[in-house]
């Protein structure tokens, strides 16, 4: 396992003539329906570190890959939504457990992707793990916070409960490759939505490693589907897909905001948007008050109100 930052990630052999083991490099793949396919298109793109050095080739997912991911998410939705809240909470908590075991790898990858020195990268990764824990704990509480019993003026027991919206498309933050992504991903997941996530385009690798964590956790295949690729190719397909119920446009580039939101309107998608006043690159994901929000969970919930008769 990698221990010392970029060198390990890039897998360069030593050039000083001493015998050093040639590292086994990782192929960074898509994550669809619990499997790790390459893009069906056979395309990839070169990912560079913050310092400009080439790190790896990432899959350049196609429209078809995205449609496959939506199908996988749709199929996984009934099972994930039907799990007991406590079970879902435990499953997501386990993601944090497994991330903890891969801390060093994440530190190296986030450091390389975001150009952070180790102490800072470590802080970011630790916070990403803690954020899973924070959101996981909401699984069996959010209904009590957001639901209600309503005193109607008629003989009915009337109550309102939140239900997950369905398939949520996430355009993950472009800048914060892991912590930002986790903050936006955990919120819809914890309530029982399934997700198709587009990683940061320029910093996709920590997200791919996260998929390896998800695959070995108890999160069922298809609940989270992760695509790397180009925003201009993928975002319009995601926003325009009729079987995507909601979209998180946090990471959509300014230039694509209007088109994305217009496409989302065409089938009345639920939108969770970054305010135009918030600069994507400057958002402080380390600020718990800013990034740990029940409102972000609520954005992907539907409120159902039931009138149950009272009487013999």
């Amino acid at each position, binding site marked *: 396992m990698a221990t010392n930052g970029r060198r390990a990630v890039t897998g360069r052999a030593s050039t000083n003539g001493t015998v050093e083991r040639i590292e086994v490099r990782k192929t960074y793949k898509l994550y669809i329906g619990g499997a790790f396919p390459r893009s069906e298109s056979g395309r990839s793109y070169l990912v560079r570190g913050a310092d400009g050095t080439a790190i790896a080739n990432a899959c350049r997912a196609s429209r078809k890959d995205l449609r496959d991911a939506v199908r996988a998410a749709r199929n996984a939705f009934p099972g994930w939504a039907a799990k007991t809240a406590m079970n879902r909470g435990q499953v997501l908590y386990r993601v944090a457990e497994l991330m903890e075991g891969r801390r060093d790898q994440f530190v190296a990858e986030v450091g390389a992707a975001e150009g952070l020195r180790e102490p800072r990268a470590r802080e970011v990764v630790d916070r990403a793990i803690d954020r899973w824990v924070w959101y996981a704990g909401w699984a069996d509480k959010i209904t009590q*916070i957001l639901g*209600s019993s*309503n*005193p*109607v*003026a*008629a003989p*009915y027991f*009337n109550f*309102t409960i939140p239900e997950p919206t369905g398939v949520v498309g996430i355009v993950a933050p472009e800048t914060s490759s892991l912590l930002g992504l986790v903050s936006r991903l955990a919120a819809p997941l914890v309530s029982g939505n399934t997700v198709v996530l587009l990683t940061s385009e320029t910093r996709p690798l920590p997200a791919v490693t996260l998929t390896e964590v998800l695959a070995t956790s108890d999160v069922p295949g298809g609940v989270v589907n992760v695509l790397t690729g180009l925003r201009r190719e993928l975002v319009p397909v995601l926003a325009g897909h009729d079987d995507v*119920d909601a979209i998180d446009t946090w990471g959509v580039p300014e230039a694509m*905001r*209007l088109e*994305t*939101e*217009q496409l*989302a*309107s*065409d*089938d*009345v998608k*639920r*939108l969770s*948007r970054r*305010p*135009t*006043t918030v600069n994507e690159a400057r958002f402080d994901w380390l600020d718990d*008050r*800013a990034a740990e929000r029940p*409102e972000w969970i609520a954005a992907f919930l*539907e*409120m*159902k*109100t*039931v*009138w*149950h*008769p009272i009487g013999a």
Partner: protein
Amino acid sequence: MAGRNSTSVIPAPDRAPNSWGLGDGQAIPWDYAPAPEARDIVTLKDRYGLFINGRFVPATGGDTFVSIDPATEQPLAAIARATPVDVDKAVRAARRAQRRSWGQLSGRERAKYLFRISRILQERSREFAVLESMDSGKPIKESRDVDVPLAASHFWYYAGWADKLDYAFPGRVARPLGVAAQIIPWNFPLLMLAWKIAPALAAGNTVVLKPASTTPLSALLFAEVCVQADLPPGTVNIITGPGEIGMALATHRDVDKVAFTGSTEIGKKIGRGVAGTDKALTLELGGKAANIVFDDAPLDQAIEGIVNGIYFNQGEVCCAGSRLLVQESIAETVIDKLKDRLSTIRVGDPLDKNTDVGAINSKAQLEKITELVASGVAEGADLYQPACDLPERGYFFRPTLFTNVAQSHRIAREEIFGPVLSVLTFRTPDEAVEKANNTAYGLSAGIWTDKGSRILEMASRMKAGVVWANTFNRFDPTSPFGGYKESGFGREGGMHGLHAYVRLEDR
């Protein structure tokens, strides 16, 4: 309701239902006497202006349009036709009030204003009910017993929230969004106004509201209530005009919040219109609700519920139970009973206190209903209409029942917004769920069964925002209302209805 003032006769139909044993469709020798509500409680002006900054003003350029009584096709009044310049004036007035007067009031003071409005609505309830029925065509017993009292209670409910917002959003400070643009439909003009304005004002927003062009009068009478309540000028502004004016309002750059109730088609356009901005948006759109009747349902109660579900307000209800799903084993019985019951429905003068189904709101809507019903026949469904007499003038449509309907038929898929019921059948609960959810809409659903656990199981499987069990079309200010899927997003009513009008900040 029926017979509340009567001392002698049992409510009676004009033709004998089968169950009476007099022979099918036999005319029976008695009838209701006409019981028209007096119109003179309403004083109509010849012309109505726009209500901007606390005063009635003519539209820029002075254009008007006419609002007619759909039951008589007679004009009621000339209404100012707003222009984009007027939209701008109204938004400015609202902004000013939000900054300087309404937005500066404490929640406690806002609450007292809203209680005041609620009280005035109660005091002037008869006037509002008559005017609403004249302008919209809905039966007086509905405007009197449903629309107006619910509108008043909606203001009452949200009045109490105005100074208790901290308790609605624990851990957060709720701030008003600012200026709300609100666009409402013609099916429940005053009630939709209340659903929009009450939570907006409670949270400290100011509003510009555009009523539908065929039903502006109750909103303009409400403007008088605002004056009577001494509401700070600009807090509520009401502009009248065609749909383009609604779009101009929704997309006005100084509007912070858009709330729209209406068709899914227009809702999507409004979504496009506010795309790329920071405007908050809630949409309450169309529906094609399933009303599911199981074989253990209390049948007579269910029949009343089915009738109320689809013929209430001429079926011009977004949450109408327009698809009846009956368990196959009781389908024949239910359909027979429904036909019986249909023969006793009274269609006619909306101002008559005995009328069950009034006038269709407009000629355009009547044409749309007629066209969709024709498509049902053309696609092979079996049509049933009771042999009731319709008034010679006005926009009326017979209560209509289609049997032998396939899920692919337009009448089973498209929102008709008229008194037209499509009957489908199912065998198992799974099939009922599948058929009920087989629509792009998701506003409401009904479940009829004697078994409480089945109610809750079915309710949890409905992709719908409101589920009525052994009842239908019930509303309450404390009860959140709104849709799944293409029926929109956001909730109106209850604590959840406040959320649509606040910005939450960290403490």
